[in-house]
C-alpha cells in the first residue's frame, strides 16, 4: 500500500495549498470519510485502501482557493471533464494521483456479513478480511467491488501532478465497459420498462445522486426543485421520479465520467448510472467520444459537425 507515500506527498504539497482533500477512517472500520487537511498533523490521519470509494474530485468546483486532491484513476476523469468544460482552473489544483487496483463496495460487504456491525477490517493483496461479532470473513476484492472496477480502463490517473506509486496498466478489455448496458439492450422493450420502473419506484427523491454527482454543477438551482420553470411536481408518482432521473441523465449526456457516485450514494440502491452509461455508449458510437479522458476534447453536445457521419435521417 502506498499510504506512507501519500502522507509524504500531502505534507510536501500542504504549504502551497489551502487544504488537501483526502480520506480518513469513518464511523467504523468499513467506512472512510473525506478529510480536508490543513495541518501536517492531520496528514497522519489519512488512509488509502480499497474502501476509499468516494470521488473527492467532486469537491473541486466549490473550492475558492488552491487545493490538492487525492484521486484514483476513475476519479481523475472528473478533473479532465472539469477541464474540458472550464469548471476549474487547473493551476489551482494539485492532483495527487493514486494508481488503484480496485475498490470495495461497502454495500456489497455489508450484505455479505449480514449487516452486522464491523469490528475490524484488514487488507491483503487482492482481498479484504472483515471481523464482526460472529466471526471473520475474507472476500476477494474482485467479488465485492463496484461494477465499474470490473471493467476499469484507467487504473492510473489520467492527469496528475504527483503519483503515489508506479502506474498500472488496465488488464480489462475495452468492450467490457458497456457489458451491463449491452445485457439490458438484449432484453425486450417490455422487460426493460418493467426493470426501470421497478427500480425508479424505490426513489425517495432525496437527491443524493444529484448532489454527489461531480458533473451536476447546477446543485442548488436544479430545475428538479424550481417552481419556475415548473418541470416536475412534488408528487411522489412514478412518472415524477422517472422524470427526475431523466433530467439527471439528459443533463449528463456526453458528460458522465462514470465514477459511479450516483449509485454508490443511493440509499435505496437504485442503479442510477445505467441511463447515463447507455448515453455514453451511444456517444462513443456516434461521435467516438469518451468523457473525461482528454482535456482537449469538447463534450459532444457542445459542438456539431455540419455533416454527421453516423447520424442517418430516420424514415417513417
Amino acid at each position, binding site marked *: 500500500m502506498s499510504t506512507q507515500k501519500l502522507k509524504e506527498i500531502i505534507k510536501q504539497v500542504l504549504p502551497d495549498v489551502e487544504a488537501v482533500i483526502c480520506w480518513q477512517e469513518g464511523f467504523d472500520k468499513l467506512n472512510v470519510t473525506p478529510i480536508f487537511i490543513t495541518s501536517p498533523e492531520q496528514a497522519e490521519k489519512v488512509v488509502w485502501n480499497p474502501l476509499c470509494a468516494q470521488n473527492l474530485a467532486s469537491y473541486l468546483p466549490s473550492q475558492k482557493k488552491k487545493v490538492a486532491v487525492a484521486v484514483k484513476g476513475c476519479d481523475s476523469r472528473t478533473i479532465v471533464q472539469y477541464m474540458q468544460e472550464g469548471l476549474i482552473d487547473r493551476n489551482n489544483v494539485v492532483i495527487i494521483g493514486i494508481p488503484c487496483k480496485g475498490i470495495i463496495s461497502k454495500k456489497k460487504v455489508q450484505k455479505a456479513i449480514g449487516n452486522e456491525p464491523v469490528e475490524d477490517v484488514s487488507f491483503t493483496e487482492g482481498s479484504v478480511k472483515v471481523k464482526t461479532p460472529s466471526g471473520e470473513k475474507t472476500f476477494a476484492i474482485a467479488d465485492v467491488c463496484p461494477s465499474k472496477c470490473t471493467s476499469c480502463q484507467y487504473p492510473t490517473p489520467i492527469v496528475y501532478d504527483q503519483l503515489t506509486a508506479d502506474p498500472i496498466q488496465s488488464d480489462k478489455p475495452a468492450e467490457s465497459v458497456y457489458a451491463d448496458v449491452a445485457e439490458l439492450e438484449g432484453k425486450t422493450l417490455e422487460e426493460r420498462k418493467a426493470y426501470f420502473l421497478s427500480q425508479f419506484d424505490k426513489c425517495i427523491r432525496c437527491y443524493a445522486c444529484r448532489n454527489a454527482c461531480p458533473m451536476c454543477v447546477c446543485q442548488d438551482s436544479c430545475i428538479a426543485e424550481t417552481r419556475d420553470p415548473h418541470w416536475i411536481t412534488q408528487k411522489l408518482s412514478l412518472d415524477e421520479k422517472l422524470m427526475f432521473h431523466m433530467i439527471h441523465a439528459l443533463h449528463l449526456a456526453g458528460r458522465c465520467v462514470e465514477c459511479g457516485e450516483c449509485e454508490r450514494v443511493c440509499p435505496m440502491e437504485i442503479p442510477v448510472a445505467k441511463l447515463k452509461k447507455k448515453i455514453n455508449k451511444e456517444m462513443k458510437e*456516434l461521435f467516438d467520444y469518451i468523457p473525461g479522458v482528454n482535456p482537449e476534447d469538447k463534450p459532444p453536445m457542445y459542438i456539431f459537425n455540419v455533416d454527421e457521419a453516423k447520424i442517418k435521417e430516420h424514415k417513417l
Partner: protein
Amino acid sequence: MSEVAPKELRIVGFLCNWCSYGGADTAGVGRFRQPTDLRIIRVPCSGRVDPMFVVRALLTGADGVLVSGCHPRDCHYTDGNFYARRRLEMLKRLLPFLGIDDKRFHYTWVSASEGAKWQQVVTDFTKQVHALGPMHQK
C-alpha cells in the same frame, strides 16, 4: 383496416417557427388532408427543443412526439438544428432503453415550402403511433 375510425390519440408536435411551422401552414393552405391527432407547439428553432420537452410530454399524457425543424444548413439561426440533431438523436437512442418505444418519437426536417412533405410526415407518423396504440393505459 377497421371500418370504425380509431380513437384519436394525443401527438405533440414541436415545430420551428421558420420552416416547419410554415410547412404545416402551407399544407393547411393547400388543403392537404391530414390526421387530426397532432397538437402543434411552435418554437423559435428546433435547437430550442430540449429533449426533456419530449420526455415530459410522453410522461404526462402524449402518445407520440414529433419534432420538426429547418433542413440542416437551412437553419434561420445558422446552426440551431445542428445542435438539435445531436440531442434528438441521443434521445431517440435512449428512449427504447428505458422501455419507451422509439417509434413514438420522430424528428425530421420540413421546409416552409414542403406542404406535401408535411402532409406525408404527419400522416405517416400518426399511423405509426396508432399502430402502437395509447401510451398510457388507464
